[in-house]
């Protein structure tokens, strides 16, 4: 098991300073800018699909080609969007949030956020800005 001393690596003040640092605010903003709208989007799209299947079965039974109807195509589209969102999220995390998180973690390990220091230290220009 991990040594309890190691877990108490940082003081509460350091965490507070880190939380209020501009790079952390930026990190959170970048995370939320992707995760929240995307969650809303896939949830709305899923609900729309469930509601259409439940309350508009005739519309969903419209044949598109051969025996394949709109409902089956939209259902397969749910698979496609799920795979696509997964891919987009991984890209977003690799490019937009991981670099800041990795850099902050290294600085936190070196106690770079002790009161009075830190926030203006290393900048995060190294992170890819898109």
């Amino acid at each position, binding site marked *: 098991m991990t040594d309890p001393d190691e877990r108490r690596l940082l003081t509460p003040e350091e965490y*507070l300073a880190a939380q209020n640092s501009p790079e952390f605010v930026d990190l959170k903003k970048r995370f939320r800018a992707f995760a929240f709208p995307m969650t809303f989007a896939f949830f709305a799209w899923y609900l729309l699909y469930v509601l259409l299947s439940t309350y508009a079965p005739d519309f969903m039974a419209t044949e598109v080609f051969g025996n394949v109807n709109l409902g089956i195509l939209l259902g397969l589209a749910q698979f496609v969007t799920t795979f696509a969102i997964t891919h987009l999220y991984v890209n977003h995390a690799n490019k937009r949030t991981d670099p800041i998180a990795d850099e902050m973690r290294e600085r936190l390990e070196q106690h770079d956020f002790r009161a009075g220091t830190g926030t203006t230290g290393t900048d995060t220009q190294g992170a890819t800005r898109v």
Partner: protein
Amino acid sequence: MSELLAVDSGTIGEPAVNISIFGAFVLVTLFITFRASRNNKSAADYYAAGRNISGTQNGLAIAGDYLSAASFLGIAGAIAVYGYDGFLYSIGFLVAWLVALLLVAELMRNTARFTMADVLAFRMRQRPVRMAAAISTLTVSLFYLLAQMAGAGGLVTLLLGVSGEAAQAVVVTIVGALMIFYVLVGGMRGTTYVQIIKASLLIIGAFVMTVWVLGEYGFNLSSLLGGAAENAAGAATPRDVLAPGAQYGATGTSKLDFVSLGLALVLGTAGLPHVLMRFYTVPTAKDARRSVVWAIWLIGIFYLFSLVIGYGAGALVGADRILAAPGAVNAAAPLLAFELGGTVLLGIIAGVAFATILAVVAGLTITASASFAHDVYASVLKKGQVTGNGEVRVARITAIVIGAISIGLGILALQAGLNIAFLVALAFAVAASANLPTILYTLFWRNFTTQGALWSIYGGLIACVTLIVFSPVVSGAPVVEATGKSPSLFQDVDFSWFPLNNPGLVSIPLSFFLGWLGSKLSKERPDELKSAELEVRAFTGIGAEKAVQH
């Protein structure tokens, strides 16, 4: 072939082949579990496999944990009989993983040690929140365990050629004993390997059947659908299996019921404690992300296979023969395997189905025992004054107790004829109502308080269970003409007043509301320092539990 099918009381194939393939799986996994047990020393080893599982391995293990008998046999069967409405299930089960990927997996990995309660109690008053989280973890695990155990007993009549209550009870006991053994000896590492092997077998088996079915129809999806539709239109109860509504379209209530189920499925996954626990077995948050990505691809592809297998069973076996077989809807995939590849393919699929149940129950047992030992025993009862080894000893004892309880209740559930899909849906509804709102508030809302957490967890849990008790699932569903019985748990009584089978539509929003209201009305301020620590740790990974070096 159909003559062969009718030889005896409904068993198909050669029980000896089925048993020997299942036996081979058990032997291989036991061997691996023994090898894995050599590194099982600390609590991190026992609960979290030393956090040494790679992202890819964990992705396979998650798929192994998630593709339970209900989703393997249940979804293929539902598609075979009801067509489109069965397909809807699989979409909810898959899309749900985006909640885990985008909002939960990485942040939980960074902040938790062994259980969901580690995160939920982090910035709250420890003991009440841990207790609440443990109670909801145990409730969800128990419902899920019951479903799997009852499923094992039901399968056995079909696949191993034994019938009768005593024989089924023996099988449930054997499954339970094996599960306890895996968990005791192998811990989380052994359980993980069992899940990886099972997921690989399941996906390969489904792939073979999919290609085979498509081959019969010249690799043309449209003609496969045509075959299924034609067969279903001529069945004893004609159904339109290509359009929505065959299962849920009957009345306004049944439609609302389906929306409720859909909500529970999509929001339940990220609150399932045995799924959350899998995130703690990898070394970093990045590996947690990688494992969810693998899981999404594997689960998604598997459900696409299920679509073909389901319609294939509808077209090649037919709804009438499926519903007449022991196990009814659950028999679709095994019957199709027999139709395509005879005894050998059936034996493989049957072996995989048992492996499925074994792997899932092992995962559930370790989660439930970790929650009891880590949250209830070590934190609440002993107030943290307990060594890691003492805690693991309690976890092992708890695993035996939980195993024994689930064997007993599983036999009872089987004899009461409790519907398996309902038990799983109930587990999802409880997870979505009691767990997910608190997880999201804890991670993303600074002003969330202890009172909010308790109101949300207990409120969601109590609302969920109460609504179920007073729903048609327990009493008062109208008698079905074909069987002369009511699908309710209790016959001949009616104390139901809640019209829906699934409570999610009411209990999930209620739990979110209670979490908000409880926080707003609470007198204590949120702990700002703890809150800062949780947030910084969640997003940067500082102070996250490291992998154990061996």
